[in-house]
């Protein structure tokens, strides 16, 4: 499934991330996945939330620089080798993964969820849809 990810620019200083999560809490936005990429001076917080539009508005209002990007959310069988199966299909389709991370949206029916950032989200979505 293709969903919107919100990326936020964060300076590396104490309390920066807390400010972001507080803003989301104030607006009753539920976080489903978070990933942080960082350098010595700054970081990028990538967020998956239940209401990306509302989150983007709330954060922009408070002066944050952010960007919405389509990513692919995919269920992964929660057992040894589960992720390998999925990655094998991605590799077979010759798709480069820019980055990926795990989500903590309810692990029902023995499934875990991964978030994939690739150049062509619809193509990856198609490949993964065939798997399940």
């Amino acid at each position: 499934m293709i969903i919107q990810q919100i990326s936020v620019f964060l300076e590396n200083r104490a309390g920066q991330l807390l400010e972001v999560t507080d803003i989301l809490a104030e607006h009753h936005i539920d976080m489903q996945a978070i990933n942080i990429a960082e350098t010595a001076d700054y970081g990028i917080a990538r967020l998956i939330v239940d209401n990306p539009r509302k989150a983007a508005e709330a954060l922009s209002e408070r002066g944050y620089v952010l960007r919405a990007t389509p990513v692919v959310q995919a269920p992964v069988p929660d057992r040894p080798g589960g992720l390998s199966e999925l990655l094998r299909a991605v590799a077979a389709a010759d798709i480069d993964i820019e980055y990926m991370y795990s989500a903590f949206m309810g692990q029902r029916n023995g499934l875990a969820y991964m978030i994939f950032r690739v150049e062509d989200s619809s193509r990856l979505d198609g490949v993964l849809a065939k798997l399940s």
Partner: protein
Amino acid sequence: MERYYQPEIETASREQILAWQNERLLRQVRHVWDNVPYYHKKMEEKGVSPEDIRSVDDLHKLPFLTKDDLREAYPYGLLAKPLKNCVRIQSTSGTTGRRVVAFYTQHDVDLWEDCCARAITAAGGTDEDVCQVSYGYGLFTGGPGLNGGSHKAGCLTLPMSSGNTDRQLQFMVDLGATILCCTPSYAAYLAESIHERGLRDKIKLKAGIFGAEAWSEEMRRDIENRLGIKAFDIYGLTETSGPGVAFECSEQSGMHINEDHFIAEIIDPDTGEVLPDGEKGELVFTAITKEAFPLLRYRTRDICVLTRKPCSCGRTHVKMSKPMGRSDDMLIVKGVNVFPSQIETVLLEQGYQANYQIIVDRVNNSDTLEVMVEMTPDNFSDSLGRITDMEKGLVAALKAMLGIYAKVRLVAPKSISRSEGKALRVIDRRKI
């Protein structure tokens, strides 16, 4: 005993110096009037003609020249000799918008080197000395100027140029350098390296000539103690030929301006009015012997004081204090002129906001330059690779513009303080 390179000039009577200045100023004004349409027009606009300038007392009637004029007239607009009579070009480091290109005839080079030879001789340089020139060579005037002066003073000259500390120290030790010429911060760095490597007893240095950068008395004493030398200041700018416009003598209390070549004035930077000797103001130079690039009343933007108190060294030429500041926003970082506007230009070109802050510091005796830049929505990406690529692009563009490395620090939008009125663009943490 005080040594002079040109004793008859350096210790000439005030009357004699004034006579030279009067005669040369008149000739120079005529030369510029006849050969530099740019300045000719400026004089006409001010209603001044060469006939109005009969002595140094009339100097204040002439229009000023500023860095803006140099930019506007770039590259040939202030040239007073045909190019075929010129033999050399020097330039200020690494800038495009503010680049200064100066031209020299062979005669100009000779006089410039004489000025540098006076500085080296005043520092004790003779034909018994080995003079290590560790200023940069090339377009920068430091290396070529001191190199020529060292030849004229008769020293065995080591044209090391800047950088490569290992090689600097090896030559200093193996070839017994006795005089070191470089920026004060590099001198401090070399002094530190000499101590770390236990070379203190292996060096033969007795004097250093350190310029192109602001440095304090404490820094001077520190370098002197660490190296067991006497450290002399030297002053100059590309616009007026280069180092050697003024230099320190054994008294080490101000730099003698070579008044047979340059007439110095101190003006109020706001009104342009000439201030009496002893008052603090902006230093203005009129080059009275230069042929190819003779700037009249050039505003240096350096704030200092002139003193005509008799000097124990026997020299009679006026002394200028160390520059105490600037009347514009120019910074000197690692000996290189940096204008905040240059940084602004690069940021705008690269798609960043013109809201930035420059932080200059001195770490381990070396200047550092950091530019804080606010992240913008357009430049932001979810990919770290793309952001670091842009950051690298910005660093490269700044290096191309400034000629020196500046660290870029990306910060959150609106995190750089915008005070009412003037933005705090520059934070200079150097204790000098």
